[in-house]
């Protein structure tokens, strides 16, 4: 068995994809966006409650897609919940680096540990878009998704 495959589809990822955290609609969402990958038809909707300072007071997602896109969305909600706008920004930047196999500039140790489960993606450039879909959707929700 290909090692890079084992690393990509490691247990944490599969667990996230089978049992996604923060899954479902957030009726009270202040921000919301739908992401779509036209190549595979995968979809994800990200719901946010941002407080006055832009802190992620609550977050949920809903979606249909491959293990990578679902796991990535689930992982993202874990990471972003409770974070300030600046922290979230930093996390997103770090994540985008990690999945491409680049070294993120500055990232809190624990976030990095969490994200490291996704570093196997760098061997699968064609799947990077699956992993970043949720994050780009989150960003869209913040910037253009005010309800």
């Amino acid at each position, binding site marked *: 068995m290909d090692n890079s495959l084992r690393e990509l589809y490691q247990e944490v990822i599969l667990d996230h994809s089978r049992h996604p955290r923060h899954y479902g609609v957030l009726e009270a969402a202040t921000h919301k966006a739908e992401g779509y990958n036209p190549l595979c*038809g995968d979809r994800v909707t990200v719901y946010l409650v941002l407080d006055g300072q832009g802190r992620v007071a609550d977050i949920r997602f809903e979606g249909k897609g491959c293990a990578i896109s679902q796991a990535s969305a689930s992982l993202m909600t874990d990471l972003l919940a409770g974070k300030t706008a600046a922290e979230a920004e930093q996390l997103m930047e770090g994540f985008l680096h990690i999945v491409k196999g680049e070294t993120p500039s500055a990232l809190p140790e624990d976030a990095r540990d969490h994200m490291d489960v996704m570093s196997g993606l760098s061997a699968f450039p064609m*799947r990077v878009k699956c992993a970043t879909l949720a994050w780009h959707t989150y960003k869209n929700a913040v910037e253009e998704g005010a309800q």
Partner: protein
Amino acid sequence: MSAAAKIIPAFDAQAARRDFAILAKPVYGKPLAYLDSGASAQKPAIVLETMKAFAETEYANVHRGVHYLSGAATDRYEAARRTVQKFLGAAAEDEIVFTKGGTEAINLVAYSYLMPLIQLGDEIVLSVMEHHSNIVPWHFLRERQGAVLRWVDVQEDGSLDIAALDAAITPKTKLVAITHMSNVLGTLTPLAEIVKRAHAKGVPVLADGAQGAVHEIVDVQALDIDFYAITGHKLYGPTGIGALFAKRAHLKTMRPFNGGGEMIREVTRERITYADPPARFEAGTPPIIESVGLAVALDYLSGFDRAAVKAHEHDLLSYAREGVRQLNWVRVIGDAPGKGAILSFEAEGMHAHDLATILDREGVAVRAGHHCAQVLMERFGVTSTSRASFALYNTRADVDAMLSGLHKAREILV
């Protein structure tokens, strides 16, 4: 042993494989099982070598020059047109228009034939299994001119509902646009019957032959079809070229599509007159080297006993279908009687992209996604499928690799 299987020895796939250097090149250290010829076929050495040799010895722009190379290149280009004519069974070479591919061939009909005819409320009949290339051009006419798209459903097994098609043709129908062979289901449509019914109501028929021409012998005269579109790169030929067959009577009345050199008769500041077909529809420098490649590819394909090739591909299809049928966690989509060599399926608990990624590392190249057929995906309630498509160079070993890859994927993902 089936009747089909008995014919197989007439075609030697192992020998044919040697014409395709890429098939011998391992992927991630594994033998390549290329099961994505439905997206694009690999090209035999003779095609690549002839294109190169042509460019090294006889290349120049066509039609415009009186010098030797220009004449030689023009001869090759026009000979390629005759090769396509013969391949499709057209009555005359001037019924063949070279395009950049299958998509452009269909757009040519949309822009040059139908656009000037369409009035608000006019209808275009098409099936739910069309490729986007045979959907979007008609959607343009809906968006821009108020045409109405009339969708014909397929049955659960993926076969075309011919009665529904017949019923969909009304006095407002201006065209039936239908695939010859579905790139997802493998379904072959009864073109002759469709043409008969449409013509009985005075409606012309366009067939998207991007897949059909690869696997079936086409005779546009016998079909009496109005338009038939093909694309080079699926026919073991180069990218950048395709062709449209259109009946001469249609071509004569069609207005130009792209404007530029070659397609005019006379240009002044005030007015313009156009060249006769097919030149009228071939603006600018055409895909000259690619036309030579396409001709060689068609000759290559026609050089085999096509029935034997079909039997071989059908053997692979049956073998693969049998293989996945034994996995009760795989659902095949498309099981129409007599279908062509394409197998689409869903595997329980596995998204097509994850499956394809795992197969890839096993050297198995399949397509995963909506296959440019989102209307069909919707019809079957899926967002994507995995698809294995078979070409003359595939063997049962390729299928075996896929089946064993399926097991590995299940181990990993489920």
